[in-house]
């Protein structure tokens, strides 16, 4: 486990206000989802999940075909498709377009993909202002923070922190009423929308048979981002494809309910190409940037490929007992929770944070709520095996291997094993029947210490199993 991972976890566990914020927010999201699915609200929920999984499997298994179909349809509607292999290529494209058009200001709607490539910072280096317009993301950007949750980025902030932040960054009087805070953000951002040259969005879905992108939101900022400026750029991972517009019914029914308990979010935009002939408003230019950034590495593995089915609803985060304790910022990358635990090692390599696949109780709650039925616990197990293989290759974990070799040798020598057991029992501190937190100095070797740092020992029994067996 890296020191940073360990430190972040303990920091979060020790912050009682933060613990309450995470617990309360995820509990609300859990309750909303449950309500949206109970009774007759969505009677064919399980069939829809199975169908969504089959649709995603078909698209991902034939991804090259659908990518080309999508591209051809975008072009047919007057847009352009740019393939980017990494963060640099995304930034390079946007920068060169902005330079060509003389653009100064970008408005952005919420997109995990742009978080992944650190979009805003890269553009700021080149004096291009890029403003987040989703309320939560705007606050995160003002605080120079990173999203705490896929769906609710500012989940960890209280209204009082927001009040101080707005006062510090915008110079407005301290305001702790949430409605008024929202109106402050609205008026600042409204000005940005009306003056921005470029709007950058993500995409919840890319539709191959239509050359369209679909955006799902509640605030209206994505609609403004994609309607007000002259140029619209959508940045999306290549796995966001679905084959047909008609399949949207299945995905939209699942997405809103799983994320926030809504049958449909307030706005669902289905956008294809720039403004057409007689249409009154809309952008003059339309670009879709298709990002790889490690996704093609995942495709080769038939089992783990399903990690790319994710529609980013965040339900697995809300239901995860680990996420609900250690929070979003403990995770080593922008994607947190169970889905983050399976895609981070696959995008960035298992050695980026080798402890990540192990930071799970494998309780299976994530798989149970996943609207596209990704078998997250199974992938976590496979990733654990990958970490061990990688450790072997890199010559890591020597101590563990030696310890287990000694253990195996002792297990093959019953008398020695029994003697060691008796010795350990006699060395162990006396217990009044409770579990032991520490062992005497003589036994406190590094591997024992490491083991005990996460666990307690049961009190030594009065008689060993062997003794009982002989006396029976």
């Amino acid at each position, binding site marked *: 486990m890296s020191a940073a991972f360990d430190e972040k976890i303990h920091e979060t566990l020790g912050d009682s206000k933060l613990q309450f914020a995470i617990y309360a927010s995820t509990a609300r999201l859990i309750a909303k989802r449950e309500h949206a699915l109970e009774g007759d609200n969505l009677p064919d929920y399980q069939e829809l999940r199975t169908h969504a999984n089959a649709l995603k499997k078909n698209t991902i298994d*034939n991804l090259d*075909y659908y990518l080309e179909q999508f591209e051809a349809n975008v072009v047919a509607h007057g847009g352009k498709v740019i*393939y980017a292999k990494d963060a640099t290529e995304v930034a390079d494209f946007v920068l060169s377009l902005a330079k060509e058009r003389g653009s100064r200001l970008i408005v952005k709607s919420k997109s995990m993909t742009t978080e992944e490539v650190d979009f805003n910072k890269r553009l700021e280096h080149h004096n291009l202002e890029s403003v987040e317009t989703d309320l939560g993301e705007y606050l995160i950007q003002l605080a120079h923070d990173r999203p705490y949750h896929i769906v609710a980025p500012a989940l960890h902030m209280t209204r009082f922190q927001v009040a101080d932040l707005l006062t510090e960054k915008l110079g407005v009087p301290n305001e702790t009423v949430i409605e008024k805070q929202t109106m402050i953000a609205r008026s600042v951002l409204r000005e940005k929308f009306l003056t921005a040259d470029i709007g950058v969005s993500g995409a919840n879905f890319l539709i191959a048979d239509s050359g369209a992108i679909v955006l799902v939101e509640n605030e209206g900022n994505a609609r403004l981002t994609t309607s007000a400026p002259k140029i619209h750029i959508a940045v999306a991972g290549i796995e966001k494809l679905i084959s*047909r517009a*008609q399949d949207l019914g299945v995905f939209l029914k699942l997405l809103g309910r799983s994320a926030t308990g809504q049958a449909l979010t307030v*706005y669902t935009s289905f956008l294809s190409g720039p403004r057409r002939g007689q249409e009154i408003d809309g952008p003059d230019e339309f670009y879709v940037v298709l990002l790889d950034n490690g996704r093609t590495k995942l*495709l080769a593995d038939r089992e783990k490929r399903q990690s790319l089915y994710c529609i980013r609803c965040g339900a697995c985060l809300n239901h995860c007992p680990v996420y609900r304790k250690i929070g979003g910022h403990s995770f080593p990358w922008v994607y947190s929770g169970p889905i983050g635990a399976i895609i981070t090692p696959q995008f960035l390599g298992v050695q980026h944070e080798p402890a990540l696949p192990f930071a799970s109780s494998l309780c299976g709650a994530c798989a149970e709520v996943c609207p596209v039925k990704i078998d997250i616990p199974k992938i976590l197990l496979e990733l654990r095996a990958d970490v061990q293989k990688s450790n072997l290759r890199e010559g890591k974990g020597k101590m563990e291997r030696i310890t287990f070799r000694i253990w195996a040798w002792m297990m093959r020598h019953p008398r020695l094993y029994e003697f060691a057991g008796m010795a350990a029992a006699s060395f162990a501190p006396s217990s009044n029947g409770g579990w032991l937190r520490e062992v005497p100095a003589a036994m406190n070797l590094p591997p024992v210490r490491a083991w005990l740092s996460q666990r307690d020992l049961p009190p030594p029994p009065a008689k060993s199993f062997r003794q009982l067996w002989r006396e029976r």
Partner: protein
Amino acid sequence: MSRDHILHKVRTALGRNAGQAPEPAPPVRLTIPTQETSARIDSLCARVEALAGKTYRAESDADACRYVAAAIEGKSAVASNAPLLAECGITALPNVRSGFYESAALREACASAGCGITSADYVLADTGTLVMLASPQEARLISLLPPVHIAVVASARILTSLDELLSLLPRPAEQTSSMVLITGPSRTADIEQILVRGVHGPGEIHVVVV
């Protein structure tokens, strides 16, 4: 160029060749219930009201116009070029501006208007959703910039559900660059999961069924 590089990597990973046909996709799954118009209207109104929207069942065009006139009293309003609005006489109301066909002028009008009035191409009864296709009749910004949105819709345009919409419009992109589904007023819960309406889009929405 990254295009060929990425497509090559995808094909190699999947074991596919360039130009190879895809495996057949699972069947389209659309379920469309039969529902009388009156039941559709009931469902629509119940859903919109559950989302804190206002609804009104107009007996006639003139009745719809009276409702809108009362709702926009003391405010400036921009109306779309939808024929239904003119038929109802809404575009002739004194505080309503209409007839915008040019982007910059429309935008300026919408940015300062207190109210945006549109029709809707379709309405979805089971979710209380307005379906708006960008066209010379309907601009994108009228339902977005002003703080109040009033949609006047014909009862014949009410569909049962999203599935029925997708069966009518299997490829919306063939008709328009933008199809937007609007379900209730703009909202956020980004601070402490507390619901606030009208963050970027309209915080108040009226659906008038004619």
